[in-house]
């Protein structure tokens, strides 16, 4: 009897994990799609993505409720508890990233009819590619519970941050050269921020994966030094290198 109960419990964990992986894979597809919509000014596809967001929201709520019910009914411990608590946070990150893709599509509608310089388009494409890579990596790191892969996301994200700064510079140049209106320039700056945020959410997912795998948490005082164990001085834990 108890064995059957546990197998049911593990099945529930697998179902939650599959559901989250599906959401993550969905957003991994959504990012390049939103980028193409923005570059092509494809209003029909934009509408489709915007309407489709409800499904991500519903799915997020459903998965979260499953997590709560498993925690309440099965009283998980150790890595099971870590994976469920992390799941709740990861779901929120993925759901928010889907919203950001929707925001990119809405921005595409706002700037519809305005031509973008090739240099702007080039950097948008690069940001879209990098954001997709980050999300793909975070989804696959979660799926395979791959700590080292998750840990690499911080550095991959810094490239996306660089692209965002580069993009803002190109926006200034295009606006100064008079090739885009101020309104378009502002929208594009916001779009750059959306990509940067998608990257941050992917990094959050990665951090949660590391927490599931070995209990690493970014909030710990020693987390800054990336996995360096804390030192113990006079019986007190201090971050590495500060003793």
């Amino acid at each position, binding site marked *: 009897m108890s064995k059957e109960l546990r197998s049911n419990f593990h*099945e529930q964990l*697998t*179902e*939650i994990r*599959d*559901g989250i*992986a*599906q*959401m*993550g*894979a*969905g957003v*991994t*597809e959504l*990012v*390049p*799609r939103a980028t*193409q919509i923005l*570059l*092509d000014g494809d209003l029909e596809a934009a509408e489709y993505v915007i309407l*489709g967001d409800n*499904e*991500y929201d519903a*799915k997020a709520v*459903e*998965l979260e409720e499953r997590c709560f019910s498993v925690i309440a009914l099965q009283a998980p411990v150790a890595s099971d508890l870590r994976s469920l608590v992390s799941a709740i946070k990861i779901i929120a990150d993925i759901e928010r990233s889907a919203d950001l893709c929707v925001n990119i599509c809405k921005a595409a509608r706002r700037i519809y009819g305005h031509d973008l*310089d*090739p*240099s*702007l*388009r*080039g*950097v948008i*494409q*690069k940001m879209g*590619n990098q954001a*997709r890579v980050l999300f*793909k990596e975070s*989804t*696959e790191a979660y*799926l*395979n519970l791959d700590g080292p892969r998750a840990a690499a996301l911080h550095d991959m994200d810094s490239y996306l941050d660089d692209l965002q700064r580069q993009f803002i510079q*190109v926006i200034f140049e295009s606006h100064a050269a008079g090739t885009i209106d101020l309104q378009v320039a502002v929208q594009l700056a916001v779009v750059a921020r959306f990509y940067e945020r998608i990257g941050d959410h992917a990094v959050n997912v990665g951090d949660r994966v590391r927490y599931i795998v070995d209990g690493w948490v970014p909030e710990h005082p020693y987390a800054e030094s990336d996995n360096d164990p804390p030192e113990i001085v006079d019986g007190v834990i201090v971050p590495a290198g500060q003793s």
Partner: protein
Amino acid sequence: MMQATNQPAGQAQPPAALEPAASKGAHPMGPPLSTQALFARFQRNGAADALTGTHAGVIVDAHLQQLFTEVRSGERAGRIVELQGPPKTTLSIDAMPIPRGGAVATIDDISERVRIDSMRTDFVANISHELKTPVGAIAVLAEMLADETDQTVINTLSTRVVEESHRAARTIDDLLKLSRIELSHHLDDEVDLRAVVGEAVARGRMAADGHEVDVETVDTVDRLWIRADRAQLASAIGNLVENAVKYSDEGTVVQVSIRRNERWVEVMVVDQGVGIPAADLDRVFERFYRVDKARARQTGGTGLGLAIVRHVANNHGGVVSVQSQEGAGSTFTFRLPARLLGPTPEVDDSVDRSYSAGVQPASDRPRAPAETTPPQKVSMPDE
């Protein structure tokens, strides 16, 4: 082809808990089912297993779950799944029930088929457009001419008739050139690649004159003889340089260089122009494919330039490739196999050593064998 098979858990109905999720059907993310929950045995072959643990695998699995639920009715079911990439991938997933219970699904990567299909459709649409536009214009202009008495208007109209006829003639010329490339009997001619590049650069400079684009050669070897069709090579490299000039912004530089290593001889044309959107990058070598239709019209090209370049490269057993970022420029690389190297009359060691790593010293350089192997012909799917 990838294959996954399943055997249901003995009972005809899926577990009750799965029913509501399965009935959603069109949910893009699929129902949150675990494979184990639905099937007693679920086997994948190696190719299908390679997808496990990837985001594509998750998407495919979600569709598989839905399809296996659908085939329980006894009918086969299938769907087309598009993955955004890059590279963009199209998968065809088909599931069918098998008589002794269970079901089998095949996952087919049909990206290439889809690409060729769209290429074919676009080609037919484009060629009729390219040929009909000038002919239609000539007909209308001629009708107007017939009723016109004002000499100034007659002059303007007849100039336009001449322009449009030239445009049609250029398109037809290029089409004929394309079809002739494969019939070439001169693939064993000894050609001085440097001279061919030099001529192309000179022509490019002339074309650039009114446009303030500088064309320069970088790092070019003194002599490099290869066995090739001279006219074809001249037209291919000429097209690359002219294209680079056409799509460059004023005040920028087009760089042309020749490089070689043990395997390849390559001509690189680098510009700092408008660049090519990622979505169009793998299509620019198609006949009549235009990235920006409005701009292409201004530049007066026939839309066949890059198709000719690719044909010439293929015909010589080589390959042409492009890297590009919008707004930052493009790099076209035209590669020929080094076995096409012809007899080099004199070798200038100093020049050779200035080349990048991987270049053999002049003395070891492979001399063309007396009986040169005929260039490998790569058949293109669209031909």
